[in-house]
């Protein structure tokens, strides 16, 4: 068994799933992968079965957080050391996982595949959202996260266990902010991401506004009141 699991949550990705998964299987055999079909209404699950992919097939739609957590539970139960979230629409690139893993081995708990470590953030409306989130995190934790909305997050064993077993550990910027505040070590590695080739982005204008509002209130107000369950916090760090 390999020590890194690529978790690929997929919701109605029949057009891109084969291209994405075949790329991982053929070009990166050093990693394991699992597709989590999030109750898709299209042929995503059937394609995965036909091709013999490793598949967790959720019978109902749980949303990204629930689907990703299912993948993490699988990783936890099967003893993986690392797990990474990887989009099924082909935005993420596997070639950066190695670099992120190297960074993690320097002693980090979470490594974000970030678009804006060395690159500058463009001045678009979408990036305004990203800036507001970065600023909110900076305000409450004092730490800089350049790309808080990047979906490419690598977790070590402690983190994946914590994410897998707890409530309110969605793969979102507010969880990152909360964990940073409670003292975990986070690093970012510069990556490139592709634009979506097919399908529509989940976020339209109204959803984006709601998302931003939710995240900002959560980061600035709510996360400050959370208590971290001590049973998941490792007191001694092995470095």
């Amino acid at each position: 068994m390999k020590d890194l699991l690529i978790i690929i949550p997929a919701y109605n990705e029949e057009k891109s799933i084969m291209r994405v998964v075949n790329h991982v299987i053929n070009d990166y055999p050093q990693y394991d992968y699992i597709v989590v079909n999030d109750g898709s209404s299209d042929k995503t699950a059937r394609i995965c079965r036909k091709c013999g992919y490793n598949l967790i097939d959720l019978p109902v739609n749980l949303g990204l957080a629930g689907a990703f957590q299912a993948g993490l539970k699988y990783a936890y139960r099967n003893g993986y050391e690392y797990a990474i979230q990887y989009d099924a629409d082909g935005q993420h690139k596997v070639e950066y996982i190695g670099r992120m893993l190297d960074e993690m081995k320097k002693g980090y708990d979470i490594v974000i595949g970030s678009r804006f470590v060395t690159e500058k953030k463009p001045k678009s409306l979408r990036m305004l959202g990203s800036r507001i989130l970065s600023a909110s995190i900076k305000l409450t934790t004092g730490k800089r996260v350049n790309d808080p909305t990047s979906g490419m997050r690598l977790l070590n064993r402690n983190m994946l266990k914590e994410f897998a077993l707890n409530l309110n550990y969605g793969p979102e910027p507010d969880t990152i902010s909360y964990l940073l505040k409670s003292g975990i070590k986070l690093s970012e590695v510069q990556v490139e991401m592709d634009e979506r080739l097919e399908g529509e982005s989940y976020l339209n204008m109204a959803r984006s506004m709601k998302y931003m509002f939710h995240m900002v209130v959560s980061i600035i107000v709510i996360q400050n009141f959370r208590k971290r369950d001590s049973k998941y916090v490792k007191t001694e760090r092995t470095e």
Partner: protein
Amino acid sequence: MMTGVFRVVLLLASIGTMLFMLKRIRHAKIQIEDSLFWILFSALLLILSVFPGIADFMAGVVGIYSTVNFIFLFFIFILLIREFSLTIKVSQLENKLKELTQAIAIMNAEKDNKDDEKEKEENE
């Protein structure tokens, strides 16, 4: 106009609600997105009790003589909307639960069938 007593009651109720919600969040008993409504709700109560002028003004705008009546009407309306969205959510939850139960039961049935066939083959 609101009486002083009513303002104090509003103030205490809003602070109480907020503290209660935050305590629940602290011990991870509620999902954050579900707590968001109540945080905002208690914040709104707090604002109205600290600045009663806002309620006076709004009562005037919609043509209600008594500010207190405006506050009642306003919160009843908010809670009605909340009630409706909760009904939708419960309904979706029930449906998901039904589908889950069916999926598990069907999976088990298929597994049983396979086991039975295997047993038969072994016996023959």
